[in-house]
């Protein structure tokens, strides 16, 4: 079948080109992070630089990147906790309970999905300011902690569970909260992981809100610290690339370990 052979050839060609285009900038970043500023634009991408890890050492001496990393980890973990807790509760409510207000509640959730942070950043800042939360961890973390998409993903997982489990637990006299947390939630652990991974990564990349709500260096998250470093030292290209590599490493490890859940999360945000 020459025609199907041609098709395979074309498909592999597309993939090969896509792989080269995907990895060239990544390789370039890695290579530049190991070079002196003078070498970056004059030597080929796959040549070894003479800076060694010098760019990493000097960048870390100038800015407290490990503090930024800790801030990012903290903010992202709180976001995961808030989203799993509130998302599972609300998702369970929409999946397994019928009450008069549920349609109104559902509309509220749908509307909230259409409100992007980018359009409410001013009033949100004013509100958080009135709480006295500017330049605090509470202000940095809480206003954007809840990823509402979590409600949808949990609801979908719960709808698929037979009601019998819940009825049986009720007959056994289990309380409603216990049913959710000891019976139902353990049955959808993969969904918990999908929501966690999705939320963690969303928060990890959060840039606009931390930029607006913090000005203290000690509260900076990794994305803010990286951007500020670049703005302040923009001629030390090797150091900027070292910082980019450092920012990419946690995500890379996290992604390679949990890539199945990344993919599932992406699909469930796109195709609800």
């Amino acid at each position, binding site marked *: 079948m020459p*025609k199907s052979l041609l*098709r395979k050839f*074309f*498909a592999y060609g597309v*993939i090969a080109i896509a792989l080269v285009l*995907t990895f*060239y*900038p990544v390789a*370039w*970043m890695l290579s530049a992070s190991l070079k002196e500023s003078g070498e970056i*634009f004059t030597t080929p991408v796959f040549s070894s630089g003479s800076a060694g890890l010098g760019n990493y050492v000097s960048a870390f001496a100038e800015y407290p990147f490990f503090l930024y990393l800790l801030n990012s980890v903290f903010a992202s973990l709180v976001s995961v906790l*808030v989203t799993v807790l*509130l998302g599972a*509760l*609300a998702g369970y*409510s*929409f999946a397994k*309970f*019928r*009450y008069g207000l*549920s349609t109104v509640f559902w509309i*509220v959730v749908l509307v*909230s999905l*259409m*409100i*992007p942070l*980018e359009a*409410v*950043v*001013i*009033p949100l800042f*004013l*509100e958080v300011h009135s709480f006295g939360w500017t330049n605090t961890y509470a202000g940095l973390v*809480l206003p954007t902690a*809840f990823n509402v998409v979590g409600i949808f993903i949990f609801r979908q997982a719960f709808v698929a569970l037979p*009601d019998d489990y*819940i*009825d049986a637990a009720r007959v056994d006299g289990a309380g*409603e909260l216990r049913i*959710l947390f000891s019976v139902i939630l353990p049955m959808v652990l993969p969904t918990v992981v999908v929501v966690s991974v999705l939320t963690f990564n969303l928060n*990890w990349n959060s*840039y606009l809100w931390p*930029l*607006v709500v913090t000005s203290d260096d000690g509260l900076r998250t990794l994305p803010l610290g*990286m*951007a500020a470093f*670049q703005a302040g030292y923009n001629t030390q*290209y090797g150091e900027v*690339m070292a910082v*980019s*590599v450092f920012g*990419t490493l946690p*995500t890379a490890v996290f*992604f390679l370990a949990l890539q199945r859940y*990344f993919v599932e999360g*992406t*699909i469930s945000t*796109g*195709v*609800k």
Partner: protein
Amino acid sequence: MRIGNSKLFGDRIALWGILFALPGLGYILLFQLYPILFSVYISLHDYDLLSEPVFVGFKHFAALPRDHAFVNSLWVTIAYVFYTVVPVLLMSFVMAWALTQVSKSRGLFRTLLFIPSVMPIVSVALVWKLMFNFNGPMNDVAGLVLDNPVPWLNSSTYAPIALVVMSWWHAASYYMIIFLAGFLAIPKDFYEAAEIDGARGWQVLRYITLPAMKPTIALAVVLATVNGLKTFAFQQIVTNGGPADSTQILTLLIYKTSFSYLDMGRASAYSVVLFGGILAISLVQLWFLRDRNA
């Protein structure tokens, strides 16, 4: 059947349902619905954070058509979204199709190609900013076509192109994943039936694949457009809107007008326009979702 209706349990259970929904709803009211209403309120006022807000009615909205910064930003945004969304969706569709043709290493290729989408956005911005340096590798690429190197980020002609190109790199694999899921959901017997009827390559694409992919394509268009409208970090980090405001996307104009110039009223009017655009597109998405669930 849902449990709230079960004869055995009854209204007491329904109350638990309401209780379970309340924390999430409270959060949404506090940090999303109240702010969007507050945003409309501020857009009807002059407010500089220092003195009390002064009611000015629709002054800020009436001024929009003559507001050069806003009109420029609107065009910058529309151009950025258009030139990003169309090529990204074409590329990601072809990439996803190519992955369906591969069976043995599909998972591996999918993972490798997905990397640009999961890479932290600031890292992406910093790398591409350097790649578009006058002495950087993108001028080696441009050198294949053009005689002279291009001052990418220092030219109001080329800077918007540079931002579009890096957005292709960042976004294509995200929609590839979504299209791939769509492709794999098409039942195999569709293709078998087409084969029996003697359909050829292009006919299969035209009459089987594209119609079956319609809902996925529609969703991808909506998602990509909304994500394009929300883009902020690339423009802020790579060009900060310049040169000559040529990359001043609406989100960046809102940020500068509010937090640099403290003109909260005008910036809120911009925000309301941005929200209106995103709301309109999201309603289209909702309509498609309803279509699918029916």
